[in-house]
């Protein structure tokens, strides 16, 4: 395939990944956030296919298939199933007023992440798009640390992993076996999370457990 077209496709998917991350920052509803992480995983899978055409490494195609099946379909389905079990947890409480500030902080993270990456971490040594996973990593931390809903935090964790998958494929494309293992471990992880959340439903009747004074200090 044409090298210019591949580079443009790679840029397009990078932008889609960042836009999906900013969309998640602006959500207080759980359902669309899960759908957004599914979309983001598909975008990253598509990027792996583009990278395959650039490098010819067939492992990237396997990685794309595993990522789209596990992180694009399976895990979001399990999470949406949990949402149905917790109807009253469809919208995170207390996040509404903070959404505009979170979006602004998210945009600052994207610009700041690009600046730090290009000027400090890896100055001009590799593709400028390599700063996208770094910005995505910062956005995922923002999502994890600013949310109280367990499924929102889980979405942040998946986004963090997406960032590392993206970085791995971009800067070390010959390491997909390790990354494939990471994705497969997610299947076990999501079973585990499902079990803990089910227990949480029985005990707390919500996905936003209160601050327990026994667990402070």
């Amino acid at each position: 395939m044409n090298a210019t077209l591949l580079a443009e496709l790679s840029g397009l998917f990078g932008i889609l990944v960042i836009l999906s991350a900013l969309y998640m920052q602006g959500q207080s509803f759980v359902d669309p956030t899960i759908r957004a992480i599914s979309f983001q995983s598909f975008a990253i899978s598509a990027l792996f296919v583009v990278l395959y055409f650039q490098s010819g490494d067939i492992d990237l195609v396997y990685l794309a298939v595993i990522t789209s099946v596990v992180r694009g379909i399976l895990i979001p389905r399990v999470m949406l199933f949990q949402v149905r079990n917790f109807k009253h947890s469809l919208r995170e409480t207390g996040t509404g007023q903070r959404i505009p500030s979170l979006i602004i902080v998210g945009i600052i993270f994207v610009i700041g992440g690009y600046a730090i990456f290009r000027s400090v971490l890896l100055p001009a040594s590799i593709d400028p798009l390599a700063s996208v996973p770094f910005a995505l990593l910062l956005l995922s931390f923002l999502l994890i640390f600013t949310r109280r809903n367990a499924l929102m935090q889980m979405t942040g964790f998946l986004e963090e992993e997406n960032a590392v998958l993206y970085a791995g494929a971009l800067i070390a494309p010959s390491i997909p076996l390790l990354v494939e293992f990471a994705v497969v471990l997610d299947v076990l992880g999501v079973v585990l999370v499902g079990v803990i959340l089910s227990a949480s439903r029985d005990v707390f009747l919500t996905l936003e457990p209160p601050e327990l004074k026994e667990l402070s200090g």
Partner: protein
Amino acid sequence: MDQIILFAVLLGAPAAGAAVSLLPRDGIELVASVAAAATTVAVSTLVLLLGTSGVFGYFYADGLTRIMVVTISAVFLTSVGYSAFYIKRIKEPFMRFRWYYSLVDLFTFTMLLAVTVNDFGFVWIAIEATTVTSALLVALERERTSIEAAWRYTLIVSAGLVASLLSVILLYYSQGSLAISQLLEKSPSSDLLMALAVGFALVGYGTKAGIAPMHAWLPDAHSEAPSPVSAMFSGILLPTSIYALVRTFELLRGSAVFSQMQALLIGFGVFTALLAAVIMSSQRNYKRMLAYSSMENMGVILVGFALGGIGAIGAVIQVMSHAFGKSSAFYEAGNILVAYDSKSMAEVQGVAKRLRLSGYLFTLSCLCVTGAPPFGVFVGEFMILAQAMSVGNTTLVILLAVAYMYAFIGLNRQSIRMIYGESSAAGQDGGRPAPQPENWASVAIPLANLTVSLVIGMYMLPAVLHAASGFGL
């Protein structure tokens, strides 16, 4: 070839134990787990005695590996044995006991894999798998706090470990290989990338090892997990994560950024030790207090490994003796919890009058893990301090000494008050609680662990005297 078989049996035994534990026959889970644990202890002792080192297929062993496998196997065995006594008291367990034993076996398998495999990628996979296999163990008692602790543990540790995956990727990008044996032999080729890899490893594996400020999961999980699992977390899981971090850091030796990253690791280690020592003394929950003590020990151990020289030897001694001493403390805490049904120190007073042996052993365990001579932790801490003195880092010596003293006073003051304080509950003989008969296994197992820690200390005491003579002491 023979030595590969040793590793195969070492890893195969807990894996087989996990599978057999799930068979639908009453009592088979305990037999299978004890058999698996006894096998791992026998094989790891053989590995230690043979001085196995080098590359064996997918495995790599050196002195650190040998110490780690022996420690992991021994704490595995005692925790399985103690579980037989402890978990019976759980009225509504989160899962069937056969699943509990199976997960304990798998948890051990993942830790043994992490310290024996010759590939940084598989070390990461194994440590990530320790979270998957152990998270449900935290929730075993099915209480509000244990479920919340399990969730926090899963989320915080998994989020942190993603950073160490990035570390592995950077390692591969900069060195072109992930084989531990190869990378240890060659000089790092890209200083900046290697420094970044160590930095991400510090965040990732440091989260799992309870290094501050990434430690938020640790006090919750340790205090809410059943006591045998708390013992495994504190005694062997935290050092396994430190092992992964130290292996990554070792690669920097000889590079231009070594001293900067060494300072970074020492800084995080000292900060962890000081923070934990301060927080420890204000705890109201005795299991939480022990958790902060583990954090303090991990901070000191990290400093020892970062310093190198006799500091690294001290760190290895401390890893071993802390594992035995702290597991003993958690087993005793389990005995106290069974008798009092409370983790609050305010409600647990005068333990020595009610549980005589457990009370005494708890006091001794607390002394052991806070570096009282002649236990092994004392030897380890002294050697780390001696290394800091020998490199002329006065600030570090002062900060370490403050952390040691604060931890010693904080933990022992609280434990002595709890064990020998006046009991508020009246006993059958009018005012004094009647002594309770104690299950022999619940006392013999922690006593055995404490004895091992003492033997390590006595055996290594000449090394301390030698180090002390170097400073004119």
